[in-house]
């Protein structure tokens, strides 16, 4: 056997690049030892000093990594650079000697001849390393986090600032809230005056759009404009904050932050059909004004912190809203998992903390005090977190109430049945027996089924009336084998009953999708019960049935055709019986065992659902009838009542129970009165220990998660360091014991690790964790939505690279105000919206070009509505808006619901939304870009859908006294000026004339639609002043 000494040799052989020099093993070992010494004494220092920074240290230029021998021998993009033992073919030496391009080292003086000689010697001996130059296993702590780092403005603990005093008398008139004092102070320093208060019409349009995302109705506007109440505006804000549309409007902002979508992305972009609950959670949480700290906690660990609260379960959808590949190769499993975890950490970072934590994945954050080690320790929070789909109980309290109600009702039903049985059944039995004495019944003996076998895999359940309910699998073509026994020794016929059952379609008696069955063959064999022996086939000579479907008569069961049979359509839900007479009487003294096989070969899944077997020894021909108690009962029946023992009467009553229809009905009511099922919804959650959502690569063994996550070098899952243990960002942690401060160990046997719960506590902890930053980031978002520009203009980056706050004290004041209000957001909305700064007009007498960018807030900035809101406004103005809230979204653009209920499928974003700058839902978005491009104009000019809205709008206003005025009032919340009105009327006239000349049927109608469409195209329509 040829042994190849070095694994590398195999590699080189395989690629066919290098011939292995013949060398004995011992020689080889000696040379390598020598080479190692040269490395330790000389080469290590040279590489570490002159090469490593670019090749394996801070970066890997040309993919040539000198930090390990493996990297050295693998070469870089230029190919192999070092061939051990072959200096001639080691290109590296030529580059060091400046004989081959590019010369190395790239910077600084060339290496001395002596140093190059050492390297050549080392290569000649085998280029051995004693250990890697960078230990891939070393626990990286990265750069230290100092108190100076913690003193960066956004990382400092919150201290409540005192609002500056307003100086001039004029300002006292302007100032309405403490907010205004902060704003005014900076304006004063810059010598700039604020703007006047906007008129009421402007105010209501602005406020209604800001809070609900819908235009105000003309009546709403009139009422507010005329309202004499000094607090009319405050009351308006309160009313809007209480509107269900508030959540629909505000949720969209948060969904941008949460990169929310309802599909996986990548190859197939499969739907996540149960992801919409997260969207509903956000709307409901904002409408209910769930405190923001809890809002955040639930999104991270709702399943651990409030498992009985359905909204908390739905909230966890946040973690899993990112993209994930649906097709993976083995090589990609681990990398994809780290990408997925990175998405969670990065979104949490930018979205909740305004920190670009994801930048620390490959190297220490270049600008913020976030070492890579902090990144992997934080990431370890989510190591075992996966996406699952589970049933969430929607309203446990209502379910509990329903259960109490059920128990009350159930008791009533039971009492009614028992009373009937006790008080009426005995009389009814005697009456029945009296009437029965006159009839001639052959006496069917109902047989207990001893065994049931189905070739199709069905099961069975024996019922009190000795019938058999067939359960479980309903095979396409089944065959039942049934064994029964009887003491009788002279059987003349067998009866098969097909019985109705509540569990079957139309109560059966068949299992077919319409309740039918089709029996194609019936065979009977008989065996002595005692002594056994070969089964004897029983000859069946005739068959008759209580009812036969046209063309499917019961005699087909005993013909030779395997496919023909007996069926009962349309007599569903009734009892049917078939009687098969034997050629000669059958039976053995000591009892008889009958084996009956029933075949169903005619039609798919046409198997009987509930059946009962009886036999008789009555004389042939045996009549068909539907009665017939079993033998012991028939004997008892002959006894007069007076001669019966109480036990015998009890036996009769037990049998009669099953016969009496009134009792049956009462009994059915008890039976069918079931415990109400809790209302559940299938929800996509992110948790631990549930079954992961199925994945294409499951068949390849995709593990969904790894039990541990590691510190990675340069973010590469192939370069693992030690296992990462959960900790939080050091710069935002003010508890010396670290994660333990927030960790509550899970109970034994807990499904989840409760690591996320610890993170949720840390992130909202104002004193020791990152709560101060969390509060700053959210109040800045609210400010941005109301003023068009944040106090920090980079809402997703509060780090060193982000912008500094224009009003740091105001930001901190708002953040403390939020916390003082129990983290409720609605009071902050109201505070901002009732401030003088918010209520300013957008146009100034003397425009200031640079005011907005200077962040002085000396006027309101006109803002273009988002795509969703433009569409909602079109629907609302045209009177077509369908206000149904919540539930599954749609991709159908013809939908009339608000745009937030569009399903967000990553490969099929709604075109109109994209045209108006909907960002791709891939990473957290702190603010949308606003572009003005021709496709938007084309859409408003030519889209049949927009034209349709214009038509509805025209219909709405056509009947009014003055359609032009009505149009302006609906679309712009104001009446037109005289000039505008005259211009519009002239247009209508000209346009109608032109349509009339073209022979159009409704020229004036068309002209009005054109006018309505024009209103949709107005800048004033899609901007809010």
């Amino acid at each position: 056997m040829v042994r190849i000494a070095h694994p590398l040799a195999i590699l080189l052989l395989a690629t066919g690049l290098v011939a292995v020099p013949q060398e004995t093993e011992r020689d080889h070992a000696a040379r390598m030892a020598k080479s190692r010494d040269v490395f330790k004494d000389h080469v290590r220092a040279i590489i570490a000093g002159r090469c490593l920074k670019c090749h394996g240290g801070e970066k890997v230029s040309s993919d040539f990594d000198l930090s390990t021998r493996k990297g050295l021998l693998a070469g870089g993009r230029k190919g192999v650079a070092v061939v051990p033992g072959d200096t001639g073919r080691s290109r590296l030496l030529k580059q060091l000697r400046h004989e081959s391009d590019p010369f190395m080292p790239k910077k600084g003086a060339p290496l001395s001849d002596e140093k190059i000689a050492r390297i050549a010697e080392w290569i000649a001996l085998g280029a051995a390393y004693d250990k890697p130059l960078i230990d891939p296993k070393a626990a990286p702590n990265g750069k230290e986090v100092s108190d100076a780092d913690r003193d960066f403005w956004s990382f400092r603990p919150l201290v409540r600032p005192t609002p500056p005093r307003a100086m001039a008398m004029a300002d006292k008139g302007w100032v309405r809230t403490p907010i205004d004092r902060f704003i005014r102070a900076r304006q004063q320093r810059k010598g700039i005056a604020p703007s006047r208060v906007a008129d009421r019409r402007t105010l209501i349009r602005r406020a209604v759009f800001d809070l609900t995302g819908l235009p105000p109705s003309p009546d709403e506007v009139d009422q507010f404009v005329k309202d004499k109440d000094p607090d009319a505006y405050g009351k308006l804000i309160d009313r809007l904050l209480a509107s269900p549309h508030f959540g629909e409007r505000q949720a969209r902002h948060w969904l941008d932050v949460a990169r929310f979508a309802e599909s996986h992305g990548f190859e197939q972009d499969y739907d996540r059909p149960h992801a919409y609950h997260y969207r509903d959670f956000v709307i409901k949480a904002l409408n209910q004004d769930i405190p923001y700290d809890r809002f955040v906690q639930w999104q991270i660990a709702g399943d651990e912190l409030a498992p009985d609260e359905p909204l908390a379960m739905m909230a966890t959808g946040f973690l899993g809203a990112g993209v994930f590949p649906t097709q993976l190769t083995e090589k990609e499993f681990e990398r994809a998992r780290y990408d997925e975890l990175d998405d969670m950490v990065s979104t949490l970072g930018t979205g909740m903390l305004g920190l670009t934590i994801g930048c620390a994945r490959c190297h220490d954050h270049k600008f913020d005090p976030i070492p890579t080690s902090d990144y992997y320790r934080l990431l370890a929070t989510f190591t075992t977190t996966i996406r699952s789909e589970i049933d969430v109980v929607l309203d446990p309290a209502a379910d509990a109430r329903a259960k109490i109600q059920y128990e009350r009702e159930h008791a009533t039903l039971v009492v009614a049945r028992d009373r009937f049985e006790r008080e009426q059944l005995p009389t009814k039995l005697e009456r029945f027996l009296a009437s029965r004495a006159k009839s001639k019944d052959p006496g069917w003996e109902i047989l207990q089924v001893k065994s049931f076998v189905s070739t199709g895999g069905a099961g069975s359940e024996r019922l009190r009336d000795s019938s058999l309910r067939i359960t479980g699998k309903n095979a396409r073509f089944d065959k039942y084998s049934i064994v029964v026994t009887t003491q009788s020794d002279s059987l003349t016929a067998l009866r098969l009953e097909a019985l109705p059952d509540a569990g079957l379609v139309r109560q059966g008696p068949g299992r077919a999708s319409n309740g039918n069955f089709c029996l194609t063959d019936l065979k009977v064999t008989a065996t002595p019960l005692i002594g056994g022996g070969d089964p004897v086939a029983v000859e069946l000579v005739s068959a008759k049935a209580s009812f036969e479907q046209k063309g499917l008569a019961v005699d087909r069961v005993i013909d030779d055709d395997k496919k023909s049979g007996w069926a009962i359509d349309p007599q569903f839900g009734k009892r049917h019986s078939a009687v098969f007479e034997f050629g000669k009487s059958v039976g053995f003294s000591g009892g008889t065992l009958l084996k009956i096989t029933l075949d169903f070969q005619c039609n798919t899944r046409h198997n009987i659902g509930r059946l009962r077997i009886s036999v008789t020894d009555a004389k042939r021909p045996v009549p068909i009838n539907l009665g017939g108690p079993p033998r012991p009962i028939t004997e008892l029946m002959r006894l007069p009542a007076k001669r019966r023992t109480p036990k015998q009467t009890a036996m009769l009553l037990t049998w009669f129970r099953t016969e009496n229809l009134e009792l049956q009905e009462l009994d059915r009511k008890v039976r069918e009165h079931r415990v109400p099922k809790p209302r559940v919804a299938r929800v996509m959650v992110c948790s631990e220990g549930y079954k992961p959502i199925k994945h294409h690569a499951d068949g390849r063994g995709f593990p969904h998660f790894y039990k541990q996550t590691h510190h990675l070098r340069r973010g590469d899952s192939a370069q693992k360091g030690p296992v990462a243990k959960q900790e939080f960002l050091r710069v935002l942690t003010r508890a010396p014991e670290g994660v333990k401060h927030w960790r509550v160990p899970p109970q034994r046997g807990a499904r989840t690790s409760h690591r996320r719960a610890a993170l949720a506590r840390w992130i909202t902890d104002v004193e020791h964790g990152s709560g101060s930053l969390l509060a700053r980031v959210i109040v800045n978002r609210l400010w941005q939505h109301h003023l068009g520009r944040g106090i920090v203009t980079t809402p997703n980056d509060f780090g060193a690279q982000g912008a500094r706050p224009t009003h740091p004290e105001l930001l901190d004041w708002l953040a403390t105000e939020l916390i003082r209000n129990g983290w409720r957001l609605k009071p902050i909305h109201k505070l901002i919206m009732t401030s003088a700064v918010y209520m300013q007009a957008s146009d100034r007498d003397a425009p200031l070009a640079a005011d907005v960018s200077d962040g002085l807030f000396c006027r309101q900035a006109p803002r273009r509505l988002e795509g969703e809101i433009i569409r909602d406004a079109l629907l609302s103005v045209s009177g077509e808006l369908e206000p149904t809230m919540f539930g599954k979204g749609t991709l159908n653009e013809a939908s009339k619901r608000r745009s937030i209920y569009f399903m967000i499928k990553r490969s099929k974003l709604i075109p109109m939304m994209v045209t108006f700058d909907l960002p791709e839902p891939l990473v957290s978005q702190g603010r949308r870009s606003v572009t003005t491009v021709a496709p938007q104009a084309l859409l408003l000019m030519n889209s049949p859908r927009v034209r349709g809205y214009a038509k509805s709008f025209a219909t709405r206003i056509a009947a009014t006294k003055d359609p032009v005025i009505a149009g302006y009032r609906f679309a712009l919340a104001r009446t037109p000026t005289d000039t505008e009105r005259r211009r519009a009327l002239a247009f209508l006239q000209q346009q109608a004339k032109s349509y009339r000349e073209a022979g159009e049927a409704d020229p004036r109608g068309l002209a009005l639609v054109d006018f309505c469409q024009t209103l949709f195209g107005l800048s004033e329509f899609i901007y809010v002043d």
Partner: protein
Amino acid sequence: MSISRRELFKHAGSGFGMVALADLLRTQDLLLPPEGLAEASVADPLSPRPPHFPARAKSVIWIFINGGPSQVDTWDYKPELEKRDGTELKGFDKFTGFFANAVGPLMKSPFEFKQYGECGKWVSSLFPYLSQHVDKMAFIHSGFTESNNHSPALFMMNCGVPRMGYPCIGSWTTYGLGSPNRNLPAFVVMSDPKGRGLPKGHALNWGAGFLPSVFQGTWLRPKGEPIPNLRRPAHMTDAQQRRQLDLLVELNQQHLAAHPAEKDLAARVDSFELAYRMQTAAPEAFDIRSEPGDIKQLYGLDTPHCSHFAAQCMQARRLVERGVRFVQIYSGGMANQRSWDGHADIEGNHGGFALETDQPVAGLLADLHQRGMLDDTLVIWGGEFGRLPIAQKGKKPGRDHNPHAFTTWFAGGGAKGGVSYGETDEIGHRSVVDRVHVNDIHATILHLLGFDHEHLTYRHNGRDFRLTDVAGRVVKEIVV
């Protein structure tokens, strides 16, 4: 009356254009402000602007060989592979491709190779037409990528990282250059019109990622109207729409006059005029019926097996002629037999798709050349990865994915003609000499377009992103 008003707005429009340009230059100078364009509420983000240095190429047409073309069956001639046909590739990592359980022996190309052109390039019999143009082409034989799976590799090739959510090269180009023709989209994507679907990852392959959505590729619908909303409502004549537009523009002008500080309101006025012009300009650009017969013949428009691709190549030329910056045409749709993804029957698969594209792409090169457009139009031929030199077992053998080696070629736009750069090993399994990473290819394309790839950046969520991530080297060896 209405004509004079139109004239007036035209002037207003150009005046506005200056404002927007200044605005963009400012933002570019800053490498765009934090959190992107929203800050400036940029008025006309597509107004043309110069690159970092004089460009070789003004436009790019990328023939995307979707699914991953096999290098050893197309342009990378490997006589050694023929010699070792049928032998096992020792030490082969069975997880290199997609199907670890169908690893076969080395398999020679079923196609015959011959030398062509002054440069004597070996080309397989798949390309009887394209082989006539090898002296215009610069081959990169040593490409390699980071994923052995379609959509990550497609994202890598289009967006520079093997993950979703990053702007693609067409978006970066239009972000950097704007567009000289505002009547047409700046970045156009055509997909398979034969019902074989979109490339894996769908529209994300031409998405703008975190760049403003205005920079995303405009996907032409393969059936019906290529761009939505280009046709005015059926009942309207041009005059009637014009009258409606005049009213609209007049009212918007009044609104603008009341808000003189709002630049985007001015842009809105302009955008309606632009939209009005697009209604005629865009259909005209897509309409190839007016092309002369010999041109149609050159592309193979009347040849049934390639007429669909010929039409797309002709449209690409017409678009570039009118100033469109970036055109991508995908050959084939989804995976397996619906694209160049020849897992089974490599001969039939590549044979079929080569037949569909060979003459049209050759026609495009010849046509661009004869019009003098090839000098500043860069044509790229290439897919998301290569294929393995070993067989994928099956009834008719195919080839599995190969991230370690692929061939791509550039023609025109400042690329050298008749050169080959980089080498694979002697069986075409791995690129070994002068290896070219996808980031390098992107750096080179941006270089030809006049950009320093390290300085074409966009600040997003606190980081300056670029197409080439943290790497990229311009392959100067293939640049004129």
